């Protein structure tokens, strides 16, 4: 196109250029609004991990808010891309260059303000959600910065505001659970009372595992010689699955079992029953005193005492501490 052609085009004979910015804004606004409404009212109630616990509901809310925040951005990018392809495409026979690009204060300001607002919003929302009760869902530690949902106590009864303590013990390749407020009995089943603040103490007997009660929104690493604390409050009765979420050996994939959220009275009845049975069977007294970890060194020392007493030093099956592997 020659300079004469450009001058002629700009002379007023060409049709007026539509207001692309307004067009794009209106299309984006209605599409983004529709998407956000669909996300909030249709998708959000079905988003993982559900609403079985406070932690799970919190995570579901976070995912929904992030989806609502992200959808307008995604729609803007795709819309602009599609609009450019359709509206600003080169017509047949048009070999001209595009118009030169100059600085545009409004566009630059909109870009800076828009992206800054998005980043600040994500920062503010994420920070707030981390510090609200049970915000992180798991691994909050023994002294979270938020106020606990109940009172820490050495006992628990239905109707009290006491936190129920549950120790989660991983070992290749099963989970077991101890209830220190019920004499420290141990179970291969995880029972929890509904509407009760729960404090999980997660540890391991051997290698690194990860306790993942997906529907409860809880995931915490189970490390040997470590006590990893996580909190939640179950809000609905029903079953849930516990899986290991850390590659822990050849049968890591099979390391799962199920749990139940029941009414507080049903839980107390179950816990009292298991405790009584383990007392009668002698298993309760055979368990080591409740501690926040299963320290392999402590176990080895206990084993050595037994070895000395019974005179089986060197017998096959002697416990092997991490720093002292023994070849039989």
């Amino acid at each position: 196109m020659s300079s004469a052609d450009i001058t002629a085009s700009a002379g007023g004979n060409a049709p007026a250029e539509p207001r692309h910015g307004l067009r794009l804004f209106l299309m984006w606004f209605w599409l983004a609004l529709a998407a956000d409404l669909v996300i909030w009212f249709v998708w959000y109630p079905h988003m993982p991990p559900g609403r079985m616990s406070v932690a799970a509901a919190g995570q579901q809310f976070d995912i929904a808010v992030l989806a609502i925040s992200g959808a307008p951005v995604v729609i803007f990018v795709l819309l602009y891309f599609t609009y450019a392809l359709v509206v600003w495409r080169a017509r047949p026979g048009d070999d001209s260059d595009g118009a030169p690009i100059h600085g545009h204060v409004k566009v630059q300001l909109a870009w800076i303000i828009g992206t800054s607002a998005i980043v600040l919003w994500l920062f503010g929302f994420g920070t707030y959600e981390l510090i609200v009760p049970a915000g992180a869902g798991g691994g909050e530690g023994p002294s979270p910065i938020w106020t606990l949902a109940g009172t820490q106590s050495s006992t628990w009864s239905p109707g009290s505001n006491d936190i129920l303590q549950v120790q989660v013990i991983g070992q290749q390749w099963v989970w077991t659970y101890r209830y220190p407020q019920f004499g420290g009995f141990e179970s291969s089943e995880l029972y929890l009372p509904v509407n009760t603040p729960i404090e999980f103490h997660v540890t391991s007997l051997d290698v690194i595992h990860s306790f993942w009660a997906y529907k409860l929104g809880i995931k915490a690493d189970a490390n040997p010689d470590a006590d990893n604390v996580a909190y939640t409050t179950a809000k609905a009765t029903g079953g849930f699955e516990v899986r290991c979420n850390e590659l822990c050996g050849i049968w890591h994939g099979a390391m799962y079992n199920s749990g139940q959220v029941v009414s507080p009275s049903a839980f107390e009845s179950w816990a009292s029953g298991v405790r009584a049975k383990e007392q009668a069977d002698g298993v309760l007294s055979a368990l080591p005193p409740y501690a926040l970890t299963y320290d392999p060194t402590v176990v080895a020392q206990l084993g050595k005492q037994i070895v000395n007493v019974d005179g089986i030093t060197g017998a096959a099956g002697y416990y092997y501490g991490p720093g002292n592997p023994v070849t039989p």
Partner: protein
Amino acid sequence: MSVPARAAALIVAFLIVVGLGVFIGYYYIGSATTQLPTVHYTASDGQVNVVLQEDPQNNSATRPDWVSYFVQDPVSKQWLHTTLFTVPANTKVNMTIYGYDGCTPLRNNYWSQIQGTIGGTVTVSQFDQHGKEYVTNDTTSDINSWSNCNVGHTFAIPDLGLFVPVASPNAQLSANYLCSSSPCTPQGNPYAVETFSFMSPGQTGSYRWQCLIPCGGGFLDGNGGPMQTLGYMMGFMYVVAS
């Protein structure tokens, strides 16, 4: 290098990597299961009798010092160095486990408790190296490995909620007279015999079983070696249509 030559080199390199992966998968995973025999148990009058033994060593050429289970062929009565066996679905499984390995303190004494058997108990007899029976048909709901040291290993099928500590010779016998040649026999060796029953599930399929005592001597925390290898301290119970 021309484009076709580079493309050909890339394809050859890709095929080599895939071939290595297939070879490793077959050699280390495929052969580990296919070389193990599977013992088939058939039901009679709605029951099936499964017989195992656990030894302080085994008769393999490559890992003779690993602790190991053996499974008895119901027809030939031969002990096979395998941990794979089949049982019919919905059938009462009567287990007999001969414990020749020495006693081992359980890391988690919760596994002292018998779980998932019919009646919640097992019956234990123990014999010394002369064949003298010093515990006779003791039916119990737990075997405390710490106070008495009478547990050698465990037999657990987690998917069925079956957790059973397997009795061993006592501490003194374990220390001095353990069987040293596998498969072990009652002659000249102290041992325990443990029996219990459970119902096989109605759903056919593969049910893993394992020992819950870290008994892999020489491995970190005792969790490696035989604990992680089919044919030693872990296996499959295949439930087939009855």
